[in-house]
């Protein structure tokens, strides 16, 4: 039995190719069902940034070839085209890969949260399709646990690295609890709408103003916000704690005098202005007013970059967690091999005993029944006594490296028994 993963991701393949390989949604269940013809156990992880097939196969080389055929058959992309974009990991490397993916180390945005859920979904789907057996199920469980641990015990997923989340973090830093806070969305720019959605999820009350009232009203009804006419912008400004501005206007729509008037009406309460428009929506002079917190697109991106760098410093800690998970899984796998290893050893011993017995009895044709039985009994006794101690010890010492060593020493590589083909090192 051989564990491997084969696939492509955002670093090895462009969007179009990833799209053709995608096995998500309706295509997942039939693909999982088909996978049974190519491997003993299997699971598919397919997201917008990667498609990977995890499998347990009989042989390393034929297994790899078989999975490549699976991908070609499923996607219709010829093998020659696919070859250059695929990566394959075997044994321990495959285990480490899945754990790193679950922990967010292989993602486009380091530490992103979605991948953990996606790995969990892939696990469920494979179990439901009946194509994930005990080994893959345990592998996915281990990886998911590692992913969770990475996110709670390190800061890999902690601070905002997307513009929308950065805006929310700023709001929290100033206002604390966001439930019930008035938020004003000026213009219907992408980032503004994203951030507004995030804030609304936290319980904030969103108001929107746009030059064309109809579009504002449409978005408002869609999201449960309140729409106000453009002329009411100054009043809306005064009534809001957080302002997300992203219009397509060529000149600032929120002037410094407007902000000053709003501050007077707010009696000193701070005002957070997030200006995502290019060119600016808010006059830069407004930033110099007391209790005004103004962030433009450059500042937000700077913040996200700094936070991403901070996450980068956490990578080492996460690798330690991944190491632990990999070791735990490999121990588990080893222990599973103990019984089959003992069986294989006994089988080999039995084969040798049979053949030698035949040879010996062949050279002694004139033995009596009693003498024959004595020799047969001796051959059994030798084999049993020789194997008794190693078998018992193997069972009771947890079998960590012994099973592997036994296989090596007695050349027990057998199709029917799972084997770790790779020597266990610390490198993936």
């Amino acid at each position, binding site marked *: 039995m051989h564990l491997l993963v084969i696939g492509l991701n955002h670093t090895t393949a462009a969007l179009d190719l990833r799209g053709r390989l995608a096995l998500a949604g309706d295509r997942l269940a039939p693909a999982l069902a088909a996978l049974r013809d190519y491997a003993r156990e299997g699971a598919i992880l397919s997201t917008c940034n990667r498609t990977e097939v995890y499998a347990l196969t009989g042989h390393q080389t034929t297994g790899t070839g078989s999975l490549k055929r699976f991908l070609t058959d499923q996607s219709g992309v010829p093998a020659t085209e696919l070859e250059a974009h695929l990566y394959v990991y075997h044994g321990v490397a495959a285990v480490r890969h899945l754990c790193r993916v679950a922990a967010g180390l292989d993602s486009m945005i380091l530490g992103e949260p979605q991948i953990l859920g996606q790995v969990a979904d892939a696990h469920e789907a494979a179990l439901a399709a009946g194509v994930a057996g005990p080994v893959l199920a345990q592998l996915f469980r281990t990886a998911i646990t590692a992913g969770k641990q990475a996110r*709670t*015990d390190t*800061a890999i997923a*902690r*601070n*905002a690295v997307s513009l929308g989340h*950065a805006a929310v*973090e*700023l709001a*929290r*830093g*100033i*206002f*604390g*609890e966001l439930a019930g806070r008035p938020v004003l969305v000026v213009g219907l720019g992408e980032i503004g709408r994203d951030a507004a959605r995030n804030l609304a999820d936290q319980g904030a009350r969103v108001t929107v103003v746009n030059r064309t009232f109809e579009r504002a009203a449409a978005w408002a009804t869609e999201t449960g916000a309140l729409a106000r006419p453009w002329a009411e912008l100054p009043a809306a400004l005064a009534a809001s704690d957080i302002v997300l501005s992203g219009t397509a206007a060529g000149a600032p729509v929120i002037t410094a005098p407007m902000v*000053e008037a709003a*501050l*007077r009406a*707010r*009696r*000193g*309460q*701070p005002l957070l202005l997030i200006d995502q428009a290019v060119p600016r929506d808010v006059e830069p002079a407004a930033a110099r007013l*007391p*209790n005004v*917190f103004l*962030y433009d697109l450059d*500042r*937000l991106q*700077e*913040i996200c970059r*700094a*936070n991403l760098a*901070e996450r980068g410093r956490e990578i080492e800690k996460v690798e330690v967690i991944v190491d632990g998970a990999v070791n735990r899984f490999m121990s588990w796998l080893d222990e599973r091999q103990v019984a089959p290893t003992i069986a294989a050893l006994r089988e080999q011993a039995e084969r040798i005993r049979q053949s030698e017995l035949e040879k010996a009895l062949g050279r002694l044709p004139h033995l009596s029944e009693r003498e024959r039985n004595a020799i047969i009994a001796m051959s059994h006794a030798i084999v049993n006594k020789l194997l008794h101690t190693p078998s018992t010890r193997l069972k009771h010492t947890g079998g960590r490296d012994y099973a592997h060593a036994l296989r090596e020493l007695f050349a027990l590589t057998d199709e029917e028994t799972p084997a770790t083909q790779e020597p266990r090192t610390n490198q993936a």
Partner: protein
Amino acid sequence: METASSLFLSTTVTAYGLSTWLYRRSLALPSARAAAWARHALVIGVIVHTALFAGRWLLTGLPPVGDLFGLLLLYGWLLVVGYLLIEGRWRMSALGVYLLPVASLVLLLAFAAPAAPRPLPAEVWSVWLPVHAGSAFLAYALFTLAALLALLALVQERRLRRSGPSRLLASLPPLTAAQTVAHRCVALGYPLITLTLCSGAAWAGQVWGTPWSWDPKQTMALITWLLYTFYLRVRGEPRWAGRPSAWLLVGGLGCVLITFLGVNLTGLTVHDFTGR
């Protein structure tokens, strides 16, 4: 009595120190359990502190307001209890990280003061004493909390304006929360400090003949009172809101410290704790 005092005092300071460390940990890697443990350690500290405080009072029959040791104990106790109330209502673990070392420092100062309580000389004693000293210390504790919160708000504002969100930001209280709680503390402390001034004047009239003699302590107390009056008045105005009022509160604490301790150190006042 001295050794018992020292023992209780050391235990209290240790408990507060442990609590500080636990609060820091609970903020570094956000964990509700660590915060709960921090609170437990704090409560234990408060219990021992209260025992020390109450024990001294009961054993000697003298309220702890007559001497420096007792006053420092009281001050520290009020600070910590005040924080517990704030924590219960607003959940500001970050304040704990900075307040508890301050309280511990106050208690450590107490080590330097003579532990045996000494009664005030009879000619000075008056019914105004508990009113005056009690309101003064309640007010001082509240103003200290307010100043700490103001400092936290200032640091938070600086962080927000300079580098934007970062891990450290999460460990400080939100800006408006710190400002609001600071204001509440001052709002509570203001009538108390007013009472202190008035009861002080009444007492002075009783004992020294004149209610107001421009004694350095009285003058400093008046300046402190004026400062807080000013703060409450201008706090809501755009020009004074945010950083300027935060600095006012920090300055206010400075005045409080001068009024409470500084003036005594110069020896220029007749308002003395040591009963001379």
